[in-house]
Structures are given as C-alpha cells and as structure tokens.
C-alpha cells in the first residue's frame, strides 16, 4: 500500500519541486524545479533517492506534515527551526519518523528555500516531464492543508542517519559574459563588479531584485531590444536599469538586456540570500565558467560521497536533562 505524507498546515509558498522540466524551451517553458538545486540534490543524496524524484520546497515559511508510516526523511537548504514530535532536528541531515509522527517546520532562520525530502520520493503525477509547481508555466499549485502526497518505495530503509556539510559561501558570485554583455559600456560593467548589492525584499522563484546606491545599469537602448533567450542565472536590467537575477521559474524569452549569467554552481547563493544580505559579483571567462560546470548526476554523486554518519546527536537524546547540559547555550549542545 502506498504511504502518504499529509500536509497539516502550509505557508503560502510550499510546493512539490524536482529537478525541473527539461526540453521545454522551444515551446516557452523554463526548466523550473527547485529554486536551490544544490540543496534539493543534498536531500536526495542523504537518503539515496534518485535524481528523477520530487521533494517539498518551503519558501520563507514552513509547514506542518504528518507521516502515515515509518519514513526516513531529510531536511536541507535554508536553516530552519524544525521539530519531530517536539524534538529539535538538525538541518543538512537525515532523520527517521515513526508512523503518525508530526514534523513541524515552524520557522526559516537563515536563507529562503528549505527542502523536505522523503525516502522513496514524492510520486504525484508527472505532467510534461515533471512534478513541480511552475506558476508562470501553468503547472501544479502550492500545497495546502489536507493535501495527501503519495510516497514511493524506500529501497534502503535500514540506512543509518547521515549528515552533509553546508556548501561553502566564500568570495564574490561568479558571472560569465552572455550575448548582451557588450551592450553595456565598460565603465557600467566595471561598476557592476565594484558595487556591493543588497538582496531586496522583492524576490520569488522567478527572480531576485538587487538594491544598490547608484544610477542604474543601463545600456544605450534599454527599451527597444529584440527579445531573445534567457538563461536561468541571467542578471537582467529592467527599464530603469534595476538588476534582477533570474531563477528557476524565469521566462524563456525577454527583452531587457542581461549583463551576464551567474554560474549554475553559484546560483544557490542568490536563491538563499535573505533580504538585506550583501552580494558582490565578479566576471569570469567562458573557459572558467565551463571548467566549473558539472552535470546534475556528478553533483549528486559528489554529495553522496560527502555524507557522514550522524551519531549521538544530543538533539535526539530523549533524556537530555540527565547529561547536565541544560544550562549551556544550545550552540554548545550542537557542537558538543
């Protein structure tokens, strides 16, 4: 019998997401899928779930979920305040729920997109090669309380809990030149890499607005460009020269000029930047960009290799009080 995950309560931007729908550019469908594909893949790698599966993405606000049957699950991406039947859970790790257990993701503490992956994956119907909610594409809908999500078979139920380190976040975000880069005067491109941008409060799965003190990043002829292909990660300058970095649900064709494309391996940092976070960019050559490229499968394999056993996490010791750690700050508990 198929197990289910029951959505008891969901924030406004909780949805099923996956690696996206490939091959739709010709009809005007962008790839979509998880806004932070690295964090999504980490969830799969922690459980050994294959790449063509699906998980739950919680943006900004979390939700409450109930497991019908014993289920292994993983929490990855944004740092969240999550409990299983009241006990705190570690992010970037896999856990086991009992039949009837309730997972409460009550808040996202740092970052934006949190992923709940379940062993066996979510097996809702595939539409156009994917299961993910894609608003501009017109596929699916956000999850709401009462939704029952069917889960696939867990092929390795005895796997012990694992954890993965957070991805490194050092240095400026790398941008490669694109078809419109040369439309921008060299001093404008220079300013683009000199400025420290602030992630705006305006952001969603289509793109993230960047704030800054300055005059704007205009080309000579901003409003009359011939519309052309957009790539996920493109840094688009709207009519008044305001930069937006385009994410998974971006349009496929657009007329605003783009100064370059954020490398796929750095795009998760844009997706996970919280409002107010500083962001800096640097240009890299096409050759450097290519050297950084990795197939989804190789990213998955590398994450799987990076997993380590998660043993004796004080968070999961029921008799925590007996360890006399109660007076120490919770951070020490985690590290100890």
């Amino acid at each position, binding site marked *: 019998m198929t197990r289910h995950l029951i959505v008891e309560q969901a924030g406004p931007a909780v949805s099923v997401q996956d690696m996206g729908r490939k091959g739709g550019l010709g009809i005007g469908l962008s790839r979509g899928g998880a806004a932070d594909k690295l964090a999504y893949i980490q969830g799969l790698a922690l459980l050994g779930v294959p790449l063509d599966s699906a998980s739950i993405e919680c943006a900004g606000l979390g939700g409450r979920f109930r497991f019908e049957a014993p289920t292994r699950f993983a929490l990855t991406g944004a740092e969240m305040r999550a409990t299983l039947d009241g006990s705190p859970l570690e992010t970037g790790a896999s856990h086991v729920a009992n039949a009837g257990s309730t997972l409460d993701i009550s808040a996202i503490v740092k970052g934006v997109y949190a992923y709940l992956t379940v062993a066996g994956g979510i097996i809702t119907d595939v539409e156009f090669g994917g299961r993910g909610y894609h608003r*501009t594409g017109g596929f699916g809908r956000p999850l709401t309380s009462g939704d029952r999500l069917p889960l696939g078979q867990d092929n390795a139920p005895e796997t012990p809990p694992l954890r993965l380190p957070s991805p490194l976040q050092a240095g400026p975000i790398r941008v490669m030149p694109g078809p419109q880069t040369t439309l921008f005067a060299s001093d404008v491109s220079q300013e683009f890499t000199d400025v420290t941008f602030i992630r705006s409060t305006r952001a969603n799965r289509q793109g993230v607005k960047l704030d800054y003190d300055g005059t704007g990043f205009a080309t000579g002829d901003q409003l009359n460009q011939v519309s052309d292909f957009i790539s996920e990660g493109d840094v688009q300058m709207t009519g008044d020269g305001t930069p937006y970095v385009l994410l998974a649900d971006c349009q496929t064709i657009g007329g605003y000029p783009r100064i370059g494309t954020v490398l796929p391996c750095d795009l998760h940092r844009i997706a996970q930047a919280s409002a107010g976070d500083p962001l800096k960019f640097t240009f890299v050559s096409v050759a450097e960009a290519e050297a950084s490229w990795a197939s989804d499968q190789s990213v998955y394999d590398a994450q799987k290799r990076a997993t380590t056993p998660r043993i004796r996490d004080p968070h999961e010791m029921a008799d925590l009080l007996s360890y006399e750690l109660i007076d120490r700050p919770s951070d020490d508990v985690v590290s100890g």
Partner: protein
Amino acid sequence: MSDDVEVLPLGPDGILVRFSDQLSEPANRAALAFRAVIDALNLPGLSETASSLTSVFLRFQPDVLRREALEEILQKQLDMQNWHAVPLPEGRTLWRVPATFGGRYGPDLEESADLAGVSPDLAINQICANPLRVLALGFAPGQPYLGFLPSHWNIPRKTDVTPEVPRGAVVAAVRQIIPFANAAPTGWRQIGLTAFRCHDPTQEPQIPLSSGDEIEFLPVSAAELDRLLDESPPFGGAERAVLT
C-alpha cells in the same frame, strides 16, 4: 553567406546563434530553418534546441560535446547556404482569433495608439488588418510573439513593469503583439483581451501554435468576449485554416 551571424555563449552549457540583433523578418525565417537543420543532425550531447525571434539556442552536455566542437559544426552549417533567403516551413496554420480591444480589457490602448501616432480606432484596424506571424513561442508555454506591425508601431516597452496582466491579455510593443498564456508581469502595454488559450491541457494539441503559423485578430465587442470567456469554446472561438 553568414557574415553577420554571431555564435555566442549563453550559460556554461548553452550557445546562441544570433542571425540579427535587430528585429528582422529574414532573420526569423533563418532561425526557424537553421533549428530544423540542426535538429535533423541528431548530435550526441546536444540536449535541446529552440528558436526565438532572430536566434537559435542550443543546450549541450559539456561532458559529452565540447563547446569548440559544437561551434565548429554550427559554423560549417552556417556557411552552407544563405540562411536569410530560406523559405518558411510548410504545413503552417492560419488562426482567426476573436479579441476585444480598448475599454476595461485594453487599459493601455489609447497610450499605445498615441505612441504609434494613430487614433485608437485606426490602431485596432491596423492590428487586425493583416495576419501576424508566430515569430517564436516563449516567455510562457505556447505563448507567441506575433509580428510584424507597420514600422510606426515600434513603440518602446514601459519603464515600469505592470505587476500583472491576466491570461489572454493582448499586449503590444516593438512592432509585435502577444496574447498572454498566463497571468504575468509585463513591461508591454495591454491593448485588449482574448479567450484564446496558448496552452490548454483540455485540447489537442495542448500547445496549438507553432512558429511560422499566423494569427489574424477578429475584433469583437466586450460583451461577445465575455460570452466566449463564459462558454469557453475550443481555442477561445478561433477558426483554423491551412496556409498555402
């Protein structure tokens, strides 16, 4: 002859073959034909192709097909003929699509007509006078970029983005018209509304339009459009004919 064609990077696993950086009818024909020729090569490591108004996008797997190798193949094909002189593909369809213009369904009609230097009535006449070609599908599933309106319709996009126009919104900018597939933000001006759905899971085909097809708008009253929205006949009441 391909002197003015550019082969450009678009992402670490993408190449854009741009036949013109200006809106151009021959460049649109070239893009349609070039994509078809590349598709027919069935290149290992080439995962996806698409054509836009004046360009072709190719997504490749860099671990299977090197950028330099793909660029060489593309250049060889570009050199083989004058792509700007190729004919349109065969088997195209003419769609006659009812739409209403101005009023509450076309809040920006007057401003758009003003920018084009004509009265709102003349604007509607000019938009509906001739069939417009599907130059590309893009932005959202099945959504066509239609062109070309006469040159005085080379009106710019707005400096501010309209937060949302509804599904079926008929918008105008830079000598083109777009009927919107879904509710979405846009920098184009909304001049009308149609019941035609660019992507309709209840119809076959779900994506009715192909690049190269043509759309002729039939102006109807707001009351008639309300009826079409209410009764939702197949393809929003549009009629089809084979183009020869």
